[in-house]
C-alpha cells in the first residue's frame, strides 16, 4: 500500500483553468468532426429527397433511421478521447481528474449541440415533406413511441442519445486503458450498457406492450438519464487511477 | 579535452593557470564565462564555476560584478613565484637523481640545459626579474 505523505496544500486535484482549457480544446476538435459528419448527412438527405421527388413520394422520415449513427459515432469519438488522449494529457502535467471533468463537460456540450442540430434537421425535414405534400411518418424514437409530434420530445430524445453514446464511449475507453484488454472486453456488456439502454428505451421497437403514455415516456427518459449518470461517475472512478505506460514504438 | 584523472574543475583550473603563465591570458583579460565554458566544452556550468572559485581564492582571477571573471594583474607573478619555489624540488632534483642512476655526466646535463634555455629565453616574455640561476650544482 502506498504510504506517501498526504499533500500539505490543497493543490491536489483539478485546477479550473486546466479543465476549461482541456474542455475547450477537446470540444473544438470534436465539433469540427461532428460538423463534417452533419454536413454529409444534410447533403445526403437533400440528394435523397431530390431523387425521390422524381420517383415516388416518401411516407416516412428518412432521418429517423440514422438513430444508431447518432449513438455510435459520438461513442467512437469518445473512446478515442479516453484512450489516446490520456497519455498526452498527463504528459502535459495535468491531472487525470481534470481530464475526467473536461471529458464529461465535452460530452454534455456535444450532446446539446449535435442533439439539437439533428432535432432541428428533423423539423426542417418535416417542413420539406410538408411542402412536397408527403406524409412525415415517424415510428422511431420518443416521438414514434408517444405517437405525437413534439419538438421538446425530439430534443430530449436526440440529446440523450448522443450523451449516452458519448458517456459509454468514455467508460469503455477508460476500461481498456486501465485494465488488460481481456478484462475490459469481459466488462464490455457493463461498460457499453448506457448506449444500449438509451437506444432501446428511447425507442418503441423492443418489447410489447409499449407504454407510449406520458408516464411511460417519462419513466424511460428517467432510466436513460440515471444509467448515463451512473456511467459518468463510473468513468471518473475508473480513469482516476490509470497508469500511463510508455507508448509502443 | 579534460580527460585526465583529476576532477574536471581541477583540470580547468590547471589550464587557466597554464594560459596565464604562458602569456596566452594576460592580466586584466577577461576569461570565458561559466556558460561559455559549459557550452563550448559540454561540461556542467557548476564545474566551471568551481574552477573559477578555486582560482579566485588563489588570487589568479577576480570577479567584476555584472561583467565577468578577469585575470588578476599580478596573477602571472604569483604563479611564477609559486612555481619557482617548487621548481628545484619537483623538477631539478629528479633530473639529478636520474642522471646519477644512468651515469650521465653532469656537464652533459648542464650543456643541454644551457642550449635549451637559450632557445626558450628568446621566445619568453620580457619580465626577466628572475634571479640568476647558473646551474653548476657543484
Amino acid at each position: 500500500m502506498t504510504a506517501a505523505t498526504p499533500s500539505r496544500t490543497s493543490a491536489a486535484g483539478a485546477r479550473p483553468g486546466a479543465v476549461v482549457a482541456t474542455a475547450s480544446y477537446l470540444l473544438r476538435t470534436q465539433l469540427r468532426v461532428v460538423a463534417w459528419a452533419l454536413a454529409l448527412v444534410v447533403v445526403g438527405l437533400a440528394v435523397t429527397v431530390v431523387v425521390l421527388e422524381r420517383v415516388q413520394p416518401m411516407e416516412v422520415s428518412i432521418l429517423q433511421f440514422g438513430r444508431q449513427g447518432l449513438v455510435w459515432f459520438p461513442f467512437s469519438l469518445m473512446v478515442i478521447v479516453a484512450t489516446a488522449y490520456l497519455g498526452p494529457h498527463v504528459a502535459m502535467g495535468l491531472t487525470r481528474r481534470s481530464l475526467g471533468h473536461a471529458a464529461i463537460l465535452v460530452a454534455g456540450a456535444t450532446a446539446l449541440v449535435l442533439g439539437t442540430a439533428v432535432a432541428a434537421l428533423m423539423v426542417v425535414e418535416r417542413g420539406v415533406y410538408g411542402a412536397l405534400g408527403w406524409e412525415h411518418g415517424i415510428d422511431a424514437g420518443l416521438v414514434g413511441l408517444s405517437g405525437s409530434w413534439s419538438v421538446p420530445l425530439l430534443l430530449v430524445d436526440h440529446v440523450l442519445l448522443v450523451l449516452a453514446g458519448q458517456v459509454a464511449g468514455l467508460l469503455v475507453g477508460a476500461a481498456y486503458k486501465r485494465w488488460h484488454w481481456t478484462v475490459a472486453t469481459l466488462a464490455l456488456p457493463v461498460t457499453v450498457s448506457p448506449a444500449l439502454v438509451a437506444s432501446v428505451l428511447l425507442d418503441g421497437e423492443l418489447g410489447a406492450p409499449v407504454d407510449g403514455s406520458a408516464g411511460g415516456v417519462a419513466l424511460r427518459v428517467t432510466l436513460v438519464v440515471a444509467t448515463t449518470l451512473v456511467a459518468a461517475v463510473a468513468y471518473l472512478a475508473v480513469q482516476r487511477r490509470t497508469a500511463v505506460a510508455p507508448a509502443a514504438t | 579535452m579534460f580527460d585526465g584523472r583529476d576532477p574536471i574543475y581541477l583540470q580547468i583550473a590547471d589550464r587557466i593557470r597554464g594560459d596565464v603563465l604562458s602569456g596566452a591570458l594576460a592580466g586584466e583579460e577577461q576569461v570565458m564565462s561559466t556558460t561559455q565554458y559549459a557550452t563550448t566544452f559540454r561540461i556542467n556550468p557548476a564545474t566551471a564555476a568551481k574552477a573559477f572559485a578555486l582560482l579566485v581564492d588563489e588570487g589568479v582571477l577576480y570577479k567584476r560584478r555584472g561583467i565577468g571573471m578577469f585575470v588578476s594583474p599580478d596573477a602571472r607573478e604569483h604563479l611564477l613565484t609559486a612555481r619557482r619555489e617548487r621548481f628545484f624540488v619537483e623538477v631539478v632534483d629528479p633530473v639529478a637523481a636520474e642522471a646519477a642512476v644512468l651515469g650521465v655526466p653532469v656537464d652533459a646535463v648542464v650543456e643541454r640545459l644551457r642550449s635549451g634555455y637559450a632557445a626558450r629565453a628568446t621566445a619568453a616574455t620580457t619580465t626577466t626579474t628572475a634571479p640568476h640561476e647558473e646551474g653548476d650544482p657543484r
Partner: protein
Amino acid sequence: MSGFSVEVRDLTVRYPAWRRPATTALDGLSLTLEPGRLHGLLGRNGSGKTTLLSVLAAFRRPTAGAVLVDGEDPWENARVMSGVCLVRESGDVQGEVRLRDTVRLLEQVRPTFDRSFAESLMDTFELDPRATPTSLSRGKRSAFGVVVGLASRAPLTLLDEVHLGMDAPSRYAFYDALLADYVEHPRTVVLSSHLIDEVQRMLEHVVVLDRGRVLLADDADDLRASGTSVVGPDTAVDAFVAGRRVLSRRSLGRTVQVTVFGRLAPDDVAAASAAGLELGPVDLQDLFVDLTAKEGVR
C-alpha cells in the same frame, strides 16, 4: 525557486500478475535528488530507470514506498504535476496533431512553457511545424520530444533516453541547447542516457540503478575519481590490488589491466609507480560497464 527536490524512500513498483512475466521493476529504492542540479541516471536496460521516472511524473503509482517531489506526493497533485515534465523517446504527444497545434496547447496548459523558445528550437532541429509526429522519422520525433522537454522549462525536467534515433549532430545540438537553457533558467534536470561518454561531463551528480535499486549515487567528479586502471606485469598488479575492490581484469600474455574501485591515497600512487605499474583514469562509461557487469547473460 530553481527546481524541485526529489525524495524517494523504499519505493517498490511491481507490475501486476497478469503481466507475463510479473516483474518487480523497483525494489525498495531510496534516493535524494537535490534541486537545481543536473543529475545523470544510468543503468542497464531493465534496471528500473523508466519506471522510476514514470513514478516521479505521476504516470504510475507506487506499489509501496514514498515519493516526494517538491515535498509532496506527485500523484494527481495538480501543482506538482504542472511542474514536472517527463519526456520519453516519443509517444507522449498526440500523433495525429500538427506540431504547432501541440505547441499552442502546451502554451495554454503548462504555466512555464515558452512558446517562442519552442519555435526557435524547432528551427534548430529543422522540424516543420505543420507536420504531425506520425509523419516524422524516429529521430525527428525524438527531436520534438526534446523541444517539448526544454521549452516546458519545468522545475523538474526528466529526459528519458530522449536521444534515441537522433543522429550525432542532432544530439550535440540537444546537449548544447540543454546546457545553454539550463544555465539561463536553472531547474532540476534528470538525464537518463546510455551514451555515457557523451553526457558524462555535463552531469553534476550521478545515480546508477541496478535491478530496481540504487547501486550508487555520487558527485560526478567523485565518481570519476573512484576508478583507477592499473596496468603492469601480472604478479605486480595482483600484489598491488590485493584487498581492493576489483571491478575487472583483462590480460594479454603476462601484462594485466585491472580496474579497481575506490580512491587511491598518494602513498598508493607512489607505491604503484615504484612497482613499475601504470595508473590511469577510468571514464564513467567503462566504470559503469564494470560496476554493472553480471556473470552470464542478463
